[in-house]
């Protein structure tokens, strides 16, 4: 009686451990399975719909006080674009740099840094949340993206803004290692979505994306594209590189980075 109970117990414990081990190794197999992958990834859509429903258009990211600003703000991703073109921009203090706005717009635009600084500015102290888990608080000053998009006049078919950057985060032969990002018009016209040229009261440093970077405050760090060169309005981002709407998105990360 006792013996039997003992073996049964051992069987149960053994089979539980065995099943766990199988599950774990099974996960790696599942991980590479297309269908499982698409089921698992369906949660992303649910998250986006739920957050958008709760947010409405205008829910604002938390803004902080001057005293909350982090003593140090980590430089992440590219710390200095290594192209000759970028080096030339740095050489003359970005005087030759231009921000192009084109694609599905009525009036394609070109802005110098001085042009942008003349427009109505917005300053906000917000928390930057990296997808890896760390956070830093900084003060950003820039032009509301909605303002420059309105100047360009969106065509009715425009649905996304694609941001082309100067940095190549991964060296590739086909250029697919170039950083890019995209957001939809809800985020593009959000009052806190700005093209920032200053951080903590000073011009952006090269490490933080000089001369211009995106701040889209209700999403994670990888959406905050640095070294902006061109904003292209499109009806779909499936034609760009990996087709997922951004550098990190092409490497498996969510396009909607609200969580």
């Amino acid at each position, binding site marked *: 009686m006792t013996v039997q109970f003992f073996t049964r117990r051992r069987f149960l414990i053994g089979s539980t451990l065995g099943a766990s081990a199988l599950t774990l190794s099974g996960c790696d197999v599942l991980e590479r399975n297309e269908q499982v992958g698409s089921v698992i990834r369906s949660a992303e859509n649910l998250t986006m719909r739920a*957050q958008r429903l709760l947010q409405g258009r205008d829910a604002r990211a938390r803004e902080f006080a001057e005293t909350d600003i982090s003593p140090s703000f980590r430089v992440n991703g590219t710390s200095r674009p290594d192209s000759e073109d970028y080096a030339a921009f740095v050489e003359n203090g970005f005087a030759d740099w231009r921000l192009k706005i084109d694609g599905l717009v009525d009036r394609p635009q070109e802005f110098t840094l001085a042009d942008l600084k003349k427009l109505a500015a917005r300053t906000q102290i917000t928390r930057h949340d990296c997808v890896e888990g760390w956070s830093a608080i900084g003060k950003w000053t820039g032009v509301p993206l909605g303002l420059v998009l309105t100047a360009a006049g969106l065509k009715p078919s425009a649905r996304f803004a694609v941001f082309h950057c100067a940095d190549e985060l991964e060296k590739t032969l086909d250029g697919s290692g170039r950083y890019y990002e995209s957001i939809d018009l809800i985020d593009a016209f959000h009052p806190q979505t700005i093209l920032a040229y200053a951080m903590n009261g000073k011009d952006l440093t090269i490490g933080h994306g000089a001369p211009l970077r995106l701040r889209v405050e209700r999403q994670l760090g990888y959406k905050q594209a640095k070294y902006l060169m061109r904003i292209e309005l499109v009806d779909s981002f499936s034609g760009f590189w990996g087709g997922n709407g951004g550098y990190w998105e092409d490497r498996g990360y969510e396009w909607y980075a609200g969580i």
Partner: protein
Amino acid sequence: MTEWARNDNDEPPRVSLVRRHSIATRLTHWLNVLCLSFLLLSGLQIFNAHPELYWGHYGADGDPAVLTIGAGGSGDDLHGFLRIAGVELPTTGVLGVSNFEGTPTPRAFPAWSTIPSFQDLAAGRHWHFFFAWLFVINGLVYLACSFLSGHFRRDLTPTRHQLSLHHLWHEVVDHARLRFPEGDEARHYNALQKLTYLIVIVVLLPMMLITGLTMSPGIDAVLPWLVDVFGGRQTARTIHFITASLLVLFVIVHVAMVVLSGTWNNTRSMITGRYAIRHGGRKS
């Protein structure tokens, strides 16, 4: 345990099967096991992307940390460590540095404890959020069913008698001696069980969800006060980690109790709902 049964050991023991768990409890229990397993292992994968915890609104490299799992040295000198509140413990082989495909590799939690086993934050996040949704839906179904069926009131709320200090102490001693209720007493959860389950259901599991949501910049825009409830996103992240650790501790004790008080009987009751109660006779 009735008087006559205690004095009359010749009376053959009678075993009766009682209905212990409703179908809703059983289904949601096993789904919860599945969800929490995946959430824990994919959570460790996510933690590995930045294996350091902080208090407050912000925290990154160089900011004062509550907990760090890291690696030092290189080559043959590569060693892993766990640093909590300034105290550093060597953890080579498990935390900080562990074997990945045969070579000692710097990574916070070892490959056997993460989903997927290789370092892949994006994949870990997909698994985590998929099972987070399932966990929330499953939890809501459980709460609704338990509330409507009176399961909370009837089975999980401790009676006045159970909450007396004398009784509680008595139960602690019984548990420590591994003596578990028998006969009619075994029909109900004991006080320690009720309190533990309530803490898990009402405090720990909701805390996992709330601290998880507090880390989301999208949710922070909807509920700005949430961040202040915890005193910052990084505090919420740290509490998320502590609460997860407490849940792991609960599961270890929970499984130990299941095994000690009758593995087969307990497991069957959570699968078929039937639980055997022994009346009279001697304990074999």
